[in-house]
């Protein structure tokens, strides 16, 4: 094992810098050390002003998202010994930078506000009866810790200025749509406002999810298929019309 690691940390202070650059720190390596430990070492011993956002350090809150050697990852979950002796840590590129490794992710709350909220069926007998087999699909999506790595890696958000809500919010919509007692269909929203059509299911989001949610396979594609039901499939559309269950 290396005794030391060269940490190249992205530095940007809006008060004095025009553009950011990497600054190298040499950090001693301890057993089981993660990238966030190394960043903390810098903060505690070398430069207390190094901006980094973190909370739980247990991969449960999703605060410490960054791009480590180019790959969107959680700093608290990426072991230093898995990366060689030179590490680059940069902020998420898809979001406006605040300072150093910290980005402004507030756009996500704006999106969250737009997604039609949980709307239970009317006239349910209380307490509700729900079978365990109806819970498991939604459960996968509810594991999301909102680290926004999927938003960061998504090329639609990262490289194209489109009104696509992003993988996180496709997952959010799916978590509500698969709630057994939810009464509304979010296809209309996803298709007409959410920009679901911009997703070209290239699965980068799925590959970076620290919670191992099958974002594309289990959330986005099923939502796309629901959109097909309402907008592209004449037979299902007709069928739905006859049964009077169309959309919201």
């Amino acid at each position, binding site marked *: 094992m290396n005794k030391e690691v060269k940490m190249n940390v992205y530095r940007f202070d809006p008060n004095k810098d025009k553009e950011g650059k990497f600054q190298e720190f040499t950090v001693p390596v301890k057993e089981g050390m993660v990238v966030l430990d190394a960043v903390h070492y810098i903060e505690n011993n070398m430069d207390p002003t190094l901006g980094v956002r973190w909370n739980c350090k247990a991969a449960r809150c999703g605060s410490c998202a960054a791009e480590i050697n180019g790959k969107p990852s959680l700093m608290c979950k990426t072991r230093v010994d898995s990366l060689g002796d030179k590490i680059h840590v940069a902020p998420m590129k898809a979001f406006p930078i605040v300072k150093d490794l910290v980005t402004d992710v507030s756009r996500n709350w704006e999106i969250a506000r737009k997604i039609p909220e949980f709307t239970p069926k009317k006239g349910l007998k209380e307490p509700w009866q729900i079978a365990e087999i109806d819970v498991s699909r939604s459960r996968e999506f509810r594991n999301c810790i909102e680290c926004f790595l999927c938003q960061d890696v998504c090329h639609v958000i990262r490289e194209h200025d489109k009104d696509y809500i992003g993988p996180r919010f496709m997952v959010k919509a799916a978590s509500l749509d698969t709630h057994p007692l939810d009464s509304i269909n979010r296809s209309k929203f996803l298709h007409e406002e959410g920009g679901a*059509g*911009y997703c070209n299911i290239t*699965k980068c989001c799925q*590959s970076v999810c620290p919670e191992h949610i*099958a974002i594309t396979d289990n959330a986005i*594609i099923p939502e796309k298929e629901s959109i097909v039901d309402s907008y592209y499939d004449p037979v299902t559309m007709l069928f739905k019309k006859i049964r009077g269950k169309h959309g919201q």
Partner: protein
Amino acid sequence: MDSEANFLSTMKKAIPELFEPNWRLWSFLAILIFAIVALFVFPVKEYKGLIDPFYSPTILIVPVVGLFRLTCYAYRKDYYRNIFNHPQSCAADERRDSANRGYSGETTLFAFNNLHRYLLYFGIILLPFFYYDFYVSVTYFGGFVLRFASILILLNAILLTLWVFSCHAFRHVFAGGNVKCYDCALKPNARKGFFNFQSMLNKRHEEWAFISLVFIVLVDLYLRALAAGWPIDFRIFQVI
């Protein structure tokens, strides 16, 4: 030495797909070319009751099957990434040109991919023919003759079945993907069990899509070899 490395890295940035080839995509394209050449220049429809998979039940379905594959989520991912470079690779815009290239995802031209489920319906109708081919192959001589080629034909049918039944559209329309309440079904556990089983296959959809495609060509090549007179028409088991 240095300039060579520079040239290579420039090329890598310019055409990354050449350097990090996606085998599934290139195989698909190679097979497409192969199929066109083979089917129109040197057609082999049948050899002693062994029907070539391209001709089952008729060559006319090849475009439909092609379209089925083209609209499949697995192939979509591959050609969006590797032909259209959207994205070039996850989180890395090496050429720094993506923002300048127009992108409309599946909202305009590629919105036709939303019709995948209709091609799926065709695909489901076609599947029995492949099993029928197996039946024809073992009964060709009268009685029951199991040849090596029959096994290939059966395997081909099974792989195609796995690909079709692991389809995302199948999952949504038939396997219960659009169901919110499994418990409301007549047999809740069976309903959810089927969904879970299909989901398990679905996880490997990309693999099935690739293997089933390659296998068709293998079967075709084998039949061509037989037709060319190679002495490899092994009989494994027979009751006449």
